[in-house]
């Protein structure tokens, strides 16, 4: 059971879009934005509130790759594996990131909830291939080396603005 504050926040979000079935997707978006994932309990709660079945809400949430029932990291790294990125060697970039962060095809998020690495089908930035996104920022023409540089910058940012290094 989640803390009451989650339900209060969800009520606020539902109030923005209205208690109707068509509000489902915008509500799920906002919940995911707030908590960086979509807690299953809240999805069930939203379904009750807007008058659809739990199974329907679950169906919509699982249809879109974007929604996640697992908590995601502070930095969500989306490695593009569309055709253009794939032929321009996106795979080694993804492999490097996974190795560096101790992730795999089954484990997408680091235990400290800092990084999530996932593959997306196309970011629509084929001219910049291979591309990846970290939250809202696009990184172009990636190589494992550039990815390493990027990770170091992100880690420095993440683990203290005073230049503190990881223990």
């Amino acid at each position: 059971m989640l803390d009451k504050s989650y339900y209060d926040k969800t009520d606020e979000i539902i109030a923005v879009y209205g208690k109707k079935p068509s509000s489902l997707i915008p509500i799920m978006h906002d919940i995911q934005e707030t908590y960086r994932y979509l807690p299953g309990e809240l999805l069930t709660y939203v379904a009750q509130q807007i008058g659809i079945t739990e199974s329907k809400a679950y169906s919509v949430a699982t249809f879109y790759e974007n929604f996640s029932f697992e908590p995601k990291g502070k930095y969500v790294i989306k490695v593009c594996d569309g055709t253009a990125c794939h032929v321009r060697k996106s795979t080694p970039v993804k492999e490097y990131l996974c190795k560096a962060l101790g992730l795999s095809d089954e484990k997408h998020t680091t235990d400290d909830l800092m990084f999530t690495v996932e593959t997306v089908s196309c970011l629509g930035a084929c001219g910049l291939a291979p591309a990846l996104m970290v939250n809202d920022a696009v990184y172009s023409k990636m190589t494992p080396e550039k990815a390493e540089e990027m990770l170091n910058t992100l880690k420095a940012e993440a683990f203290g603005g005073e230049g503190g290094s990881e223990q």
Partner: protein
Amino acid sequence: MGKITIDGMEVEFTNEKNLLTIIKKAGIDIPTLCYIDELSTVGDCRLCTVEDEKGRMFASCSEEPRDGMVIFTNTRRLRKYRKLIIELLLSAHCQDCNTCSKNGDCRLQHMARRYGILNVRFSDYRERLPQDHSSPSIIRDPNKCILCGNCVRVCEELEGVGAINFMKRGSEARVTPAFGKTIAETDCVCCGQCRVFCPTGAISIHHHRSWVWDALEDPDLRVVAQVAPAVRVALGDAFGIPEGENVMGKIVNVLHRMGFDEVYDTTYGADLTIVEETKEFLDRLEQGGRLPLLTSCCPAWVKFVGEQFPEFIDNVSTCRSPQGMQSATVKEYFRDPKNNPDGRRTVMVSIMPCTAKKMEKERENSYTKGEKDTDYVITSTELIEMITTAGIDFNSLDPEASDIPFGYGSGGGVIFGVSGGVTEAVLRNLTDGHSKDVLHNIAVSGVRGGSQVREFTVNYKGTDLNICVVSGLARARKVLEDVRAGRKQYHFIEVMACPGGCIMGGGQPIKIGREHVKNRTDGIYRSDKVASVKKCGDNPMVLSLYDGFLKGKEHELLHNSKFCAKNFR
């Protein structure tokens, strides 16, 4: 309005909603796995695809008819196209046909035969998924699912439950309850309509045949059968008997042949139900009790109220269902050593059109004196399989009468099998006299008819009684919402979960379409016509019981001391 040329034949149309309907009317059995007239159209399976004169191909289920269309339904290209679809479906379908409960009755199998698929070129690389046996009524085997979505739409659109839905998409798409739950963990009401509409064996009945066979062979047991009204007009389907024909006499014979010690008729239990329910209704009406009174015969509906409309729990009649009353009464009868000189234990086998009855018998309030009232529930479909197993030639059997004292029921008890029947039986009981005119007036009061929601008013001793008869829980949900919001006021609401009533129950031989509802309904009303006693309260066997051993035990045997939606998790 207009004309369409189908395979060179000119066909007129008026307001048909899609091309598929017109093609069917023209006498062409266009293949489809996902199109069901009563449900929304999704165009999933693409088998109903047709070709026009310019070679354009489109799914006829989702094509609006236009005047002057020229279409072809059976071209070389279409045959190739349909074959490929079936082959692809088969490649992603567990093909254990010989050991599948749907063997011989599977629409995918029929399709494969129809299009002469002798070889599947693509191999099945999918991981085997576990079956879900959690429900007492149905079994789900995801490996046999072809993702037509019929069960999803039936559950949501017809039953208003929505226990299952699609998850994910593309090659990962599956039909499941939310969050990987089992069926038992959802709001599934066990009605089994998903099983009726499933073209394959992905959803099947939870079978209990072997337990019954074992009981029949045990000399220490007295095995007693009760046969529900709806079974008698559907069982013949499996033996080439005209649809809707009452085969109760043959059923009694075959059950005796199979070794049942006593064969009783659930119409007797239905008569008891009506006597009690009428009393309860009048009591509530006169004493200002909770109204509307909601019927309690349909366990799927009772579960639905308990889970989705708990504020209406006190409106649900305390009467046990006919199955419950019959079983409790029969068991009590044989508890008396006078009626049971050899001291055998009584095993009650209830033969039902219904999968939800398997859940009802497990409920905490389906016990009397610490003993389960109904030991086994087998559906019509399971009985057909048992008859086939026994190798008995059903058609050549002579009809037999059911045994006394619990084998005699009134016409009012028989009509329990159709939507509106419970209400009609109550109305008969409320009305003085049983002349033809009296019965006719009740029949035409609005209680009968093809629509799934029927509202009407009858006068009882100066009071106008507002009555609502519903089948299908999606519609029942609307009715209850109206009552809750104060938009509607009723005195009595009858609900049956299956569209058309128990005759279309989830355990019946599969027939989809309004014409079949009509055939079975007509069969039930014909059975009522030939019954010499029309009013449940006039059944002499029931009357003698009230004066006899039932005296003082009415509440214990015929009523639920507490409300239970379910008790099987």
